[in-house]
């Protein structure tokens, strides 16, 4: 390309090509329409300019006006409907978190003004995230203070990180390399510097990187289990005789029927909410007011551990209550 700039950074995730196709189509249409309007305008200004013999407009028949206005509405409506549908369909692909068995679950914590990451094995990193190419990476995002936004332009990926909630996003990087990660939501003084790098490595290099980590931290799930025991969550969630609390085995990723007749997907956010505000969603056949809130007893990092532990039980055999 002879332009002194590229329109977009080189695509580097499995979803970016679809987004780029949408971008190309949308920008082409905007460009053509804008150009068309300008050309039409110039043409009319030159042809119908004020000059001796053309001091008064010649107007249009009412029938012409109504016909062309309706035609215009129909035409633009149809084009817009097409663009909307295309955008929504591709968006559906972006929003659907893959359920791959070998997906990597990375916990991401945003705080002013840095990004920190924790791998399933427990290894922590600051301002750098190492991931293998080709594998789906599920990000479990939490913020410790204000709203941030996880933005990797090369992956065409952006997800706001809202305090009080846990968000999930995902990507599957296609090519090894180093990609910029920026905070896209204004978050105060050093917002501009809240940047990090996503380092995509060939799978075997990633395994090597993971193995050489000198981290003595217990793996995430084990740490979550330890915390689970320390808080004595099992007193209710593992005793199946008294039916005080729903079992957690096989819970994650399932749709849970609620007492009020509704239902909710047991995702990160649901687990987190149930720890902080147990009575927000009462599971069908259970009572409210049984579980105390753990808000203030567990911090954001500990919540990530608990959620990771519950997530690890997703495939476990549940004991029928």
């Amino acid at each position, binding site marked *: 390309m002879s332009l002194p700039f590229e329109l977009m950074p080189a695509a580097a995730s499995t979803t970016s090509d679809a987004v780029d196709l949408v971008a190309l189509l949308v920008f082409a*249409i905007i460009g053509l329409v804008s150009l068309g309007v300008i050309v039409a305008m110039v043409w009319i200004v030159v042809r119908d300019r004020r000059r001796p013999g053309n001091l008064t407009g010649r*107007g249009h028949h009412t029938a012409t006006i109504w016909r062309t*206005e309706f035609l215009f509405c129909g035409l633009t409506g149809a084009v817009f409907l097409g663009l*909307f549908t295309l955008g929504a369909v591709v968006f559906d*692909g972006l929003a659907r978190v893959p359920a791959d068995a070998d997906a990597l679950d990375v916990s991401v914590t945003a705080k002013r003004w840095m990004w920190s990451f924790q791998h399933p094995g427990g290894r922590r990193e600051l301002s750098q995230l190492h991931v293998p190419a080709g594998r789906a990476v599920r990000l479990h995002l939490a913020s410790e203070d204000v709203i941030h936004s996880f933005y990797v332009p090369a992956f065409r990926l952006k997800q706001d990180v809202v305090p009080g909630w846990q968000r999930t996003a995902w990507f599957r990087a296609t090519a090894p390399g180093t990609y*910029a990660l920026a905070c896209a939501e204004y978050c105060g003084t050093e917002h501009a510097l809240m940047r990090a790098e996503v380092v995509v490595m060939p799978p075997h290099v990633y395994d090597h990187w993971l193995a050489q980590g000198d981290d003595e931290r217990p793996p995430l799930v084990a740490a979550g289990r330890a915390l689970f025991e320390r808080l004595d969550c099992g007193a209710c969630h593992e005793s199946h005789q008294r039916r005080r609390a729903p079992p957690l085995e096989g819970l994650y990723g399932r749709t849970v029927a609620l007492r009020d007749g509704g239902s909710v997907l047991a995702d990160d956010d649901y687990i987190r909410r149930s720890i902080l505000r147990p009575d927000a969603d009462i599971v069908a056949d259970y009572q409210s007011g049984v579980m105390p809130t753990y808000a203030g007893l567990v911090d954001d990092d500990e919540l990530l551990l608990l959620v990771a532990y519950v997530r690890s039980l997703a495939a476990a055999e549940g004991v029928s209550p």
Partner: protein
Amino acid sequence: MKSWLTTTDHKRIALLYLGTMTLFFTLGGLLATVLRVELATPASDLVAADTYNRLFTLHGVIMVFFFLIPSIPTFLGNYLLPLMLGAPDLAFPRLNLASWYVFVAGGLLTLTAMIAGGLDTGWTFYTPYSTVFSDSHVVLAVLGVFLAGLSSVFTGINFIVTIHRLRAPGLTWLRLPLFVWSLYATSLILVLATPVLAMTLLLVAIERGLQIGIFDPATGGSPLLFQHFFWFYSHPAVYIMILPGMGVISEVIPCFSRNRPFGYAFVAASSLAIAVFGFLVWGHHMFVAGQSYFASVVFSFLSFAVAVPSGVKVFSWLGTMHRGAIWLTTPMIYALGFIALFTVGGGTGLALATLALDVHLHDTYFVVAHFHTIMVGGMLMAYLGGLHFWWPKISGRLYSERWGRIAAYILLVGFLLTFLPQFILGTQGLPRRTASYPPEYQFLQGLSSAGATILAVGYVLPAIYLLASLVRGRPAGDNPWGATGLEWQTTSPPPPHNFLDQGTLVVGDPYDYPNAPQPTIAGAGDV
């Protein structure tokens, strides 16, 4: 002096607003100048990051709440609405004066916040940053904006009642000038949406003082609730800004094309359609904030829907010019600039309404470029076009047509150079509101800063030659453009109660350009 400060004449109040808003615009423009100079280099060197954050926040707050929203309604609308209706004044002249005082009070509060140390939340006041983390003067600024909102509600009520009750005999709804239709639609939004903003901002102030747990997750609130409340007002507010501009363009184009508006009913109805649909699209600011997939799809769909009536306007303006007798005067150059830039701005808005694409573009420079194209390229061009179109009526003098045209072209060039590079900065992935940026973006940032200097020249020029026209300008006569509105049937400037003899008003086809008198002036090199 006293006669001005106690006047209930809508024309004088309009001029009070013009003076006040010009001051705010100048202040907002100076803030933008510092921002653009800072951004000429990647590092944060001219001002510290904290200062930069305060500068862009105040630029946004002042431009949005103290210029863009009130500008056309309270100046041109205030001045022209009674004239266009053949009425002696607005329905509530004292409410009108009160609205100016409340507006000034709001402005003074905001300026106090600025002098006391500033505001660093962004004009969007997102929580929990604004309620818990910011150590700037949020409460003071919020109260200032609250008062500006109250002033808007006064104006909106006044306009609605005036349009319903004070039309001259024979001036039926379908004979209303299109500018009046646009003011009507705008007033509906002002009255219905502004209270939501007012309550939201008060809640922010209360939450900041008392931690009541509305927006702060630490006390059980929801930051997303704030975003819903805020955009429920602030997206319709975009139409508050642009609809009156569209109204101005709908007056200028028929006059300088010597044609009836193409599809009058469509243009009038599209103003109302935009006002109604505009209330239903706020969620498109939250596609990546974590609202449900279903909500995002619905908001995306409705955002495309609102683009249809906007498209109708562009199509109708082109239709009005077609088979016309086009006279490229200063106001007409602004109108043509408006059409082109509004098309680009609206089109890029559709890019943002496209779900998959918005994920990439949201909160980047692309958004900044998009809304500046609508606001500066669209609304401000319309404002200047309207100012030039009605200046002879308001001042009774003709300005230098040559300098008018030169300034209009300089503004267009400056605009394009300033904001086109920002679209590409956005597609390349540079987030907005950043005091510093990686060096690879410097080329485009530099272009944008260079464009801003041209833009600044374009703003200073009209101030000079318009003021000069007050002293040296030739008398304009009642109807220099040969225009058809009722405002042109009285003297320039109009007498205190607008029409010397209400009985002689000729009310009929509002755009009878085929039978209208020819212009009484001929600009440089024109027929």
